[in-house]
């Protein structure tokens, strides 16, 4: 029969009477867990930030009409040459235009798919921004701005304006920050663009667009879908790309392959587009856990040592306890509980320590051109990490305490009593 209150009280007395060693052992755990919390909160915060940066605005599946040579060249249609090795030089792509055929029905079809959260059409139009004698190369992105906001957080990259205003202003433009700077334009000004066919259009600036990547901001602007179609002299059905957002990102590659197979289109999934991105996330997670586990192993050895020493000092106590009717198992639990108490107190302290340092990081200013909406370092406040942290602390101290405690279980009281 286990009598936990006695066992607990004995453990507590042992710990309290060795305050210094107890504190040192607990601080080891505190350090390990604190570091884990800080690292994991910061690293995953960083991951989240980059997720936001890349994943949120990258379509899960990007569908467009790529200009490329046909896979099947005329010679392939000629049966007698089927078994031969055909060499074709200087293959030229056939010009089909960038337009996606039947884009609107395709959109409706994809919208009815359960996996799809939303889909936005886009028209890209090459233009020149003109100001007096100056002509700047530019790219107009014609989008359904409200959908773009809902699915790809367009608002995060818009300054001195909101997407709604563009939606309401038929000839509005969210102009690239770089372009605006070069042309000394502010909100409310008009800007002239020249289409590739040479037509001139007046657009009214309703806000700035800044992605954080200078190459993009020096070129790209957002306009309404309709505006882009007009500039190109095309009708409502002229769509150059479809951007799909899914409920589950993992479905992206499968969906992309299905679209490519079903239609004569190119579909790029987010993993293809950001192959290096996943690797970065994985490596950051790996570093976080590797460092934390290393620290906990070090703390674990500290606890192992201290408990081993404690048991050596406490031989007499162990013998007395056993002689007066405590079983080997009772004695084992007395020491395991000491390890767990060290783990618990050190762990909780580590969580508090980690929390406050994370708070500090969260309030540390972090301003960079590349990330316009970020003002402080990113921290992930997921409470799950605190649960993992305390579980880590208990598991590692349990392991560290188990061996010494089992040794205490085996101690023969007769040997100790006789030894006096």
């Amino acid at each position, binding site marked *: *029969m286990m*009598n936990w*209150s*006695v066992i607990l*009280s*004995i453990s507590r*007395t*042992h710990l309290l*009477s060795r305050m210094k060693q107890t504190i040192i052992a607990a601080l080891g755990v505190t350090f390990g867990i604190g570091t884990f919390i800080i690292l994991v909160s910061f690293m995953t915060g960083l991951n989240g930030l980059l997720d936001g940066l890349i994943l949120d605005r990258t379509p899960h599946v990007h569908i467009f009409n790529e200009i490329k040579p046909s896979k099947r060249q005329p010679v392939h249609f000629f049966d007698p040459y089927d078994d031969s090795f055909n060499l074709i030089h200087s293959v030229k792509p056939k010009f089909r235009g960038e337009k996606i055929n039947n884009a609107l029905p395709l959109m409706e079809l994809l919208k009815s798919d359960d996996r799809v959260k939303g889909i936005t059409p886009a028209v890209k139009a090459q233009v020149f921004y003109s100001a007096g004698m100056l002509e700047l190369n530019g790219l107009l992105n014609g989008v359904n701005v409200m959908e773009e906001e809902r699915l790809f957080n367009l608002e995060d990259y818009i300054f001195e304006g909101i997407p709604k205003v563009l939606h309401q202003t038929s000839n509005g433009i969210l102009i690239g920050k770089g372009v605006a700077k070069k042309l000394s334009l502010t909100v409310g000004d008009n800007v002239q663009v020249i289409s590739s066919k040479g037509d001139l259009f007046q657009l009214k600036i309703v806000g700035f667009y800044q992605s954080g990547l200078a190459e993009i901001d020096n070129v790209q602007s957002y306009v309404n879908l309709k505006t882009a179609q007009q500039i190109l002299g095309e009708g409502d059905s002229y769509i150059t790309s479809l951007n799909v957002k899914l409920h589950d990102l993992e479905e992206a590659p499968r969906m992309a392959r299905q679209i490519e197979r079903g239609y004569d289109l190119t579909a790029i999934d987010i993993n293809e587009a950001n192959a290096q991105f996943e690797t970065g996330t994985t490596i950051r997670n790996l570093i976080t856990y590797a460092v934390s586990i290393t620290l906990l192993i070090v703390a674990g050895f500290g606890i192992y040592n201290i408990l081993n020493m404690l048991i050596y000092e406490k031989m*007499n*106590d162990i*013998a*007395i*306890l*056993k*002689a*007066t*009717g*405590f*079983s*080997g*198992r*009772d004695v084992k639990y007395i020491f395991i509980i000491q390890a767990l108490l060290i783990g618990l107190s050190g762990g909780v302290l580590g969580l508090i320590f980690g929390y406050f340092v994370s708070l500090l990081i969260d309030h540390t200013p972090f301003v960079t051109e590349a990330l316009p909406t970020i003002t402080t370092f990113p921290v992930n406040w997921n409470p799950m990490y605190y649960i993992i942290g305390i579980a880590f602390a208990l598991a590692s101290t349990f392991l560290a305490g188990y061996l010494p405690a089992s040794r205490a279980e085996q101690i023969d*009281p*007769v040997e100790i*009593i*006789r030894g*006096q």
Partner: protein
Amino acid sequence: MTGHAIPSVLRAEKINKYFTDPVSFHVLKDVSLEIKKGEFVSIMGKSGCGKSTLLYVLSTMDTNYSGKLYLDNRLLTGQGGEALASIRNEYIGFIFQFHYLLPEFSVVRNVMLPGLKLGLKSAEEVYQDAMEKLRLLGIANQAEKLASRISGGQKQRVAIARSLINSPKLIMADEPTGNLDSKNADNVFHLLRDLSHQEGLSLLVVTHDQDFANQTDRIITMEDGRIMSTA
């Protein structure tokens, strides 16, 4: 045995024990004995004849022997460590030559621990019992002191109080007065004898003190691991 016989508390049958390290050594040779309820028995013998070894076997702490051991006619030999620990806890009190106390616990806590382990009474009741035992031994005023902060004689009395806490059937003591001056030794002796007479407690005490032994009900004499007489 007749129907009127006083029941036996502890019975050992042909106990044999060997030490194998460093050389094989036959330390207990065919030891048989019986302690009856309320009996105060002493064991005497030359140093090294195996008294302590025998006591450890009888107290169930040492299970490495052959032969049979009964407590209240219940066979103890062959029982597991867990079961033996709880039997020790409930039925057997042990007093060591050196006053084994837990130095970081208070005096009264030391006395309470086996009672708390037994778990039949609330902590408050065990505390009251412990205080009563300490009063009986005249050291109630030391109750809240740390066990490491009292004198040798006081420690010995605390150890006796502890052995009594669960009202055991049998108390074994290995030279309980060996460390005490003659006055304290006398005190301890009278205390044990009173307990034996008043509470029907059985006592088995190893001693080198002939005067002490003479006042017990019966003396078992040992020589070279054998019982020579049980008169």
